[in-house]
């Protein structure tokens, strides 16, 4: 189980990196932490001809506040979010999400930009960053652009990035002081990929129902999903009434599933999503997280 042969470059500046990527053409690939890419290369499910490794580009491993939130270099590791080695503008959501990613050794290498570029909807960052309406700054020799995460993620391992483009930064808007957030990751064992992953963001009455709520679900489709029907069902409802059973039908609508035709495996998956959404809402209510 060894990776196929490839040309390996480890530039030290973004300029150098985008030039290498442009030269590599369609068979070039960016590697940062490599925690998702190396396993699939080891299994020879990915066979890039050229790898451009960003771990030598120091300018990409930074984080700073901006007037509207914060901006994180693409190779900021999960661990740096977890231990707040970069500023948090989400009142704990980013550190919480980071702490749930894989195992400690994975968090020490894996990066936020890498996770977004990998676009696996059962990972934390795609759903969390979509929920926060974060955007990525992208560079190539052709120029720079900003892409909202909600438009970046097109499907499993598919993004709006061109082969010569590189994520340089992730810009995250700050959460309002009154905003509540809740997140729940359903997984069989600590460190596993999520079977379901929900983020709830919004405004609620103290001890009362949700005034505004936005719900995002990962691991249910090929990209994070906004749960419009479920939000409808939740809005104005008291926390205590939001049992999973009540969320199943609107969730099925959001996922485009026909409840009358669903098989047991699909039905259980739907149940897990309902419970995950409920627990995300509950954790928002309690002001803690799960």
């Amino acid at each position, binding site marked *: 189980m060894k990776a196929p042969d490839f040309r390996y470059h480890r530039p030290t500046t973004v300029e150098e990196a985008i030039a290498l990527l442009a030269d590599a053409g369609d068979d070039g690939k960016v590697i940062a932490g490599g*925690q998702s890419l190396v*396993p699939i290369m*080891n299994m020879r499910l990915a066979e890039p001809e050229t790898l451009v490794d960003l771990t030598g580009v120091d300018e990409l491993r930074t984080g700073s506040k901006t007037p509207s939130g914060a901006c994180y270099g693409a190779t900021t590791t999960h661990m740096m979010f977890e231990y707040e080695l970069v500023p948090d503008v989400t009142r704990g959501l980013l550190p919480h999400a980071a702490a749930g990613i894989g195992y400690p050794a994975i968090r020490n290498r894996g990066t936020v930009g890498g996770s977004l570029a990998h676009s696996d909807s059962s990972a934390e960052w795609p759903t969390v960053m979509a929920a926060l309406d974060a955007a990525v700054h992208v560079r190539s020799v052709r120029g720079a652009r900003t892409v909202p995460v909600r438009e970046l993620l097109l499907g499993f391992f598919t993004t709006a990035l061109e082969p010569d483009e590189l994520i340089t930064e992730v810009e995250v808007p700050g959460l309002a002081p009154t905003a509540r957030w809740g997140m729940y990751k359903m997984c069989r064992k600590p460190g596993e990929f999520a079977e379901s992953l929900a983020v709830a963001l919004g405004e609620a009455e103290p001890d009362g129902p949700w005034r505004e709520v936005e719900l995002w679900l990962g691991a249910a489709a090929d990209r994070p999903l906004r749960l419009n029907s479920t939000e409808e069902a939740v809005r104005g409802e008291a926390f205590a009434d939001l049992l999973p059973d009540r969320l199943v039908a609107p969730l099925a609508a959001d996922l485009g599933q026909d409840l009358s035709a669903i098989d047991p495996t699909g039905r259980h998956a739907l149940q897990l999503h309902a419970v995950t959404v409920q627990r995300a809402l509950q954790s928002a209510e309690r002001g803690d997280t799960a």
Partner: protein
Amino acid sequence: MNEITVHLKVNGRPHTLRTAGRTTLADLLRDQLGLTGLHLGCEQGVCGACTVIVDGLPMRACLTLAGACEDSDVVTVEGLDGPDADRLRDAFSRHGALQCGFCTPGMLLSAHHLVRARQPLDREEVGVALSGNICRCTGYNGIVSAVREALEGGIAAESAAVTTRNHEE
């Protein structure tokens, strides 16, 4: 074959190595430096048998390219020493924290990082912190006990040292 040159420090010794660009840190350490203490159990980053310390942090040697370790400082089980390591090794043996020994080096390095942090942990927290290290033999009870004992030993030694210093002052 695309070759690269890597400069890195392993267990305190500097090395300059020619290797294939696709070589992982695990294969570099095992095949070119003869440091076979780290093991390959899955090459997918799950089992943790290849865990080594890179620039102070536990990492998967099987998912780390050798080229990415340019100028890095790597510690493997062969170079793991000091009072925390001694405490851990002793506790591992007394608590039955190893049987076949295959996961042991990776387990020790992950555990050593926890022990060094001096953050008190209950059984459940130790379990979660070690969730990335699979042991197929022991059933983990001994590993968790050993790590907690070494952690408590480290904390006690440090407070004893502080007390002694305070007395001296």
